[in-house]
């Protein structure tokens, strides 16, 4: 959309229901609501529906089996088709692309789209903003070419770009597998795939996979892909450092103990030109907090999550939250919860009953996800990877040493660390450094980041966007 088009747009748009995020959670809610005849506006920062997990290529490109997809993506395609069906010209769903939400109050979502300040006025709000990769700092992680596991997925599945020739995949959790298979699909050599958890620990996830038909199918598919391409997942290994001149050229990898602490003497150097690091996911909760939702700390679910009732309603009656923002759970959880939230809204507005099957489906999916993720809870020892001179706050170029000095003088809270050295005060507002910073700086490895203080703008927007914000 060009700037010229954007200025023709209305500054204020109205909907019965406003949805943040066009991933599986947002799409499922939108489809059910649209089918019932409600006008739905979905705000997404990307250009197409799908979110992160079901990332689509740009319009006009198609993946006709070039990049292999796991079985679960069939359901994703169906959902996208359904969604896009309702979003065709004049349909009940309007997808607003490239929208960055920067403030939210009851019935109002302010966003910036292509430099234009716009407002969505709606009755109910469904929050499905998803999650982002948890980052663990290590020496050399700031080198160009070192990206998150999610970034590689976006690169390959979202743009058909080949990330490099020799890829190193590191981290912990189920997301390593799709990262590896996306790379293989793009013809990249995966030089190593390192899971920091021990095999023993990961076996705790086995029951939740073995007794769940869809997950079993999925797991078999991944195993087949890895076997076919001679890629072996190495358990209890991670990256110790990356090196290179202006971009990553090699990595030092090694073993970690059961707590994730690096084991000296196990180092090996491996040549690579791209590194994908994924140490789990962190829920995006800022919009919910701004709207008045409560949060709770669930380490298994990625950290601070929004609190919802059994029908996905937050403490604010017209605000619902689904999917990762209520705790990491994956696409099936998001979809079931999105469906459920939409049903609850339809009861609010039309008196239609909420089928108990929707409630039990959402609960079952959530339970299954929790039990699997339990095997991959964050390993506190990984915080030992960062050295005193390792940059831990990328926005402000703050080293671990400065963060520790700050904690020692100003106090052992996230806020105190920020105040003492400015870590977490840059444009990402501690999304990247926050989840690990407090634990690293205070040496209390189980120390979760304090609940973030949410300020407006929720994401950086132009000064004139705030100034011209419709009210």
């Amino acid at each position, binding site marked *: 959309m060009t700037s010229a088009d954007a200025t023709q747009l209305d500054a204020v748009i109205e909907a019965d229901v406003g949805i943040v995020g066009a991933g599986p959670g947002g799409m499922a809610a939108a489809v059910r609501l649209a089918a019932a005849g409600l006008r739905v506006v979905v705000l997404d920062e990307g250009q197409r529906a799908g979110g992160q997990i079901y990332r689509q290529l*740009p319009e006009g490109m198609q993946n006709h089996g070039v990049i292999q997809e796991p079985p679960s993506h069939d359901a994703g395609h169906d959902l996208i088709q359904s969604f896009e069906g309702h979003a065709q010209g004049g349909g009940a769903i309007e997808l607003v692309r490239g929208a960055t939400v920067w403030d939210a109050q009851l019935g109002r979502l302010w966003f910036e789209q292509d430099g234009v300040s716009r407002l969505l006025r709606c009755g109910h709000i469904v929050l499905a903003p998803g999650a982002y990769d948890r980052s663990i700092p290590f020496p050399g992680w700031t080198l*160009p070419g070192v*990206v*998150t596991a999610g970034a590689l997925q976006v*690169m390959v599945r979202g743009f058909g*770009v080949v990330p490099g020739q020799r890829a190193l995949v590191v981290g912990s959790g189920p997301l390593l597998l799709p990262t590896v298979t996306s790379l293989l699909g793009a013809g990249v050599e995966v030089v190593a795939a390192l899971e920091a958890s021990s095999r023993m620990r990961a076996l705790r996830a086995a029951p939740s996979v073995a007794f769940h038909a869809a997950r079993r199918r999925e797991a078999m598919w991944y195993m087949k892909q890895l076997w076919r391409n001679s890629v072996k997942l190495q358990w209890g290994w991670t990256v110790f450092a990356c090196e290179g001149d202006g971009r990553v050229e090699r990595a030092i990898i090694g073993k970690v103990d059961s707590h994730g602490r690096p084991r000296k003497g196990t180092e090996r150097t491996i040549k690579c030109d791209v590194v994908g690091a994924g140490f789990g996911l962190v829920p995006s909760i800022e919009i919910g907090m701004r709207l008045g939702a409560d949060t709770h700390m669930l380490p298994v679910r990625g950290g601070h999550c929004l609190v919802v009732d059994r029908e996905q309603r937050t403490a604010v009656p017209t605000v619902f939250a689904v999917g990762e923002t209520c705790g990491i759970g994956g696409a099936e959880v998001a979809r079931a919860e999105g469906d459920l939230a939409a049903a609850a809204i339809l009861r609010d507005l039309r008196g239609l009953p909420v089928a108990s099957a929707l409630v039990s489906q959402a609960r079952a999916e959530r339970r299954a996800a929790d039990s699997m993720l339990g095997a991959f809870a964050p390993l506190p020892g990984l915080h030992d990877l960062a050295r005193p001179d390792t940059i831990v706050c*990328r926005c402000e*170029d703050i080293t671990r040493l400065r963060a520790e000095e700050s904690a020692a003088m100003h106090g052992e809270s996230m806020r105190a660390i920020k105040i003492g050295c400015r870590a977490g005060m840059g444009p990402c507002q501690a999304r*990247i450094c926050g989840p690990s910073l407090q634990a690293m700086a205070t040496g209390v490895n189980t120390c979760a980041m304090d609940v973030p203080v949410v300020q407006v703008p929720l994401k950086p927007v132009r000064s004139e966007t705030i100034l011209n914000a419709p009210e």
Partner: protein
Amino acid sequence: MSGRVAGLGERELVVFTFDGQEVNAWQGDTIAMALWAHGQVAVRNSSSEGQPRGVLCNMGICYDCLVQVEGVAVRSCTTLVKPGMIVGRGGKS
């Protein structure tokens, strides 16, 4: 060297400049992805130390991929390329 996965179809060519160099991109690319496919993984200099930085999250969260477009700092991973766009390296010059 990076490049494009073959067999996904092609898009209209979009030519823009980055730091004065011409870059061939495709309609629908973000600036960051067009640059990555072109082999350019560093897009800015870090704010205090001036170290080379590029994409980290590729989904609009980390703000490590900031570049300058017509005097405005934007995330290269969420901003689409446009014909004739003049993109400058972000950050400390």
